[in-house]
């Protein structure tokens, strides 16, 4: 293997470059990235960047010295539009063809939005530094009323950041119980109560019928006819894997690029990592697309071993992990829930908003949630037990 092409210049793409060099690969590396920036850290975009605590420079993932050592070619502001698998050739939007012995797919995900949002000023999604700069500019001009559509983690963090800037904030959530899929009904409701604790209105079971306003948004119209007035609307309704450019590549794409446990796709020497990948997960026991920072840092190591050895090389099962900072609370969660998994409080209490809970399935600890209990969390995370999956034997 003498050349590797990494598509996507963010957390997982940089992780792949780092892992290649750590494993002693000395060949050429080219990284193609649609954004004009070198890789930066996204989690602060909804947190410290939005509140003004961090500036753009504080988000950088690498530094000049590291980039020198990594010795990769960074083609930034360049979008890949096609992958021809047989020749492992990637075509860029400007028509250039890049050929390599191996391809790492690390194109992440893009924010979903609402119908009618395009062309309406004041409506935002939050995925990139560019998005965050535009949103911060609007939140810090005058005192806009803010509506956040979606009470997921990013929505909740934006609400918390906007609130800490002193703004009036309403969160609109379609489900009756926010965060139910991630944390289960009971704990989802507990975490959703942080909004009310800090003076943010949360409307649950509130479907969005449309956006109000001509040229500029003035409010969010709900399915029941109510209108939530707003000068700024942030749509936080999830992300979709960035796989459009893989149409016609022959790769299996179904809510992400399907991979085995070693991040290998069905095309030899093509691997996928991070938010775009749906790998067989030895912890959850199924193909799972995990949109967490830690997966995007761990998977590249696995994928690079697969590339360098030529055999799919799964890493030991590890519980998917994420954190979320909101309203000065730190939420940490590891594991994977199925309906019926019951949380049991093991540390602290719900009233004080400082607690840890372990979820069990047939007596086995499958997940742990902590709010402001990092010490208990790191210990309990290590007691989680994976699903047992039989790996297909190599042919």
């Amino acid at each position, binding site marked *: 293997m003498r050349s590797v092409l990494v598509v996507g210049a963010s957390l997982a793409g940089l992780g792949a470059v*780092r892992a290649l060099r750590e494993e002693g690969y000395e060949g050429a590396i080219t990284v193609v990235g649609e954004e004009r920036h070198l890789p930066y*850290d996204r989690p*602060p975009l909804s947190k*410290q960047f939005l509140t003004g605590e961090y500036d753009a420079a504080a988000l950088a*993932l690498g*530094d000049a010295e590291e980039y020198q050592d990594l010795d990769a070619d960074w083609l930034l502001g360049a979008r890949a539009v096609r992958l021809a698998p047989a020749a492992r050739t990637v075509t860029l939007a400007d028509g250039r063809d890049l050929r390599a012995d191996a391809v790492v797919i690390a194109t992440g995900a893009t924010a979903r939005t609402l119908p009618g949002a395009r062309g309406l000023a004041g409506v935002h999604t939050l995925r990139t530094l560019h998005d965050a700069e535009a949103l911060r500019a609007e939140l810090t001009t005058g005192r806009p009323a803010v509506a956040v559509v979606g009470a997921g983690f990013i929505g909740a963090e934006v609400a918390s950041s906007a609130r800490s800037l002193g703004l009036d904030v309403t969160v609109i959530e379609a489900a009756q119980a926010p965060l139910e899929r991630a944390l289960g009904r009971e704990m989802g409701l507990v975490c959703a109560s942080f909004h009310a604790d800090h003076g943010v209105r949360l409307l649950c079971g509130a479907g969005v019928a449309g956006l109000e306003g001509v040229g500029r948004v003035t409010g969010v119209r709900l399915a029941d006819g109510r209108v939530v007035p707003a000068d700024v609307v942030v749509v936080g309704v999830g992300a979709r894997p960035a796989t459009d450019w893989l149409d016609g590549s022959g790769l299996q794409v179904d809510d992400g690029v399907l991979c085995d446990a070693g991040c290998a796709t069905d095309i030899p020497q093509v691997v996928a990592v991070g938010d775009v990948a749906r790998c067989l997960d030895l912890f959850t026991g199924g193909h799972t697309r995990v949109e967490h*920072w*830690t997966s995007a*840092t761990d998977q590249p190591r696995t994928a690079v071993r697969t590339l360098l050895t030529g055999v799919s090389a799964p890493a030991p099962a590890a519980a998917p992990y994420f*954190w979320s900072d909101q309203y000065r609370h*730190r939420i*940490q969660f590891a594991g994977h829930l199925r309906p019926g998994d019951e949380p049991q409080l093991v540390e602290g209490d719900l009233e004080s908003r400082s607690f840890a809970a372990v979820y069990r399935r047939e007596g086995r600890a499958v997940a742990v949630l902590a709010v402001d209990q*990092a*010490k208990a*969390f*790191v*210990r309990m995370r*290590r007691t989680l037990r994976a699903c047992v999956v039989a790996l297909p034997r190599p042919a």
Partner: protein
Amino acid sequence: MITVCRIEDLPPGEALRVTEGVPAPVAVFNADGVLYAVDDTCTHQDASLADGWLEGCLVECPLHASSFDLRTGRPTCPPAKAALRTHHVEVVDGLVLLHVNVGEPA
């Protein structure tokens, strides 16, 4: 110099966070009988290393899992890049004593 606690209150494998009388919080660890003290706040983002996972003389940050060598304060893996300040800690007459170093990290 700060008196942290009695040595019985810091058994092997445990850590304490010192916030009083120090310019910035300090974490004191008992790593299998050897005491170490470093800045408590991770050099990456905002997490307390006293809450981290101690293994030998390495502590793993509870937020994004950078590991720090307690002997030098240096991170052994990303995302942290900068070293922690290390501080001098000793046991005298059963008391854990901390001498805070205000210089630059190694």
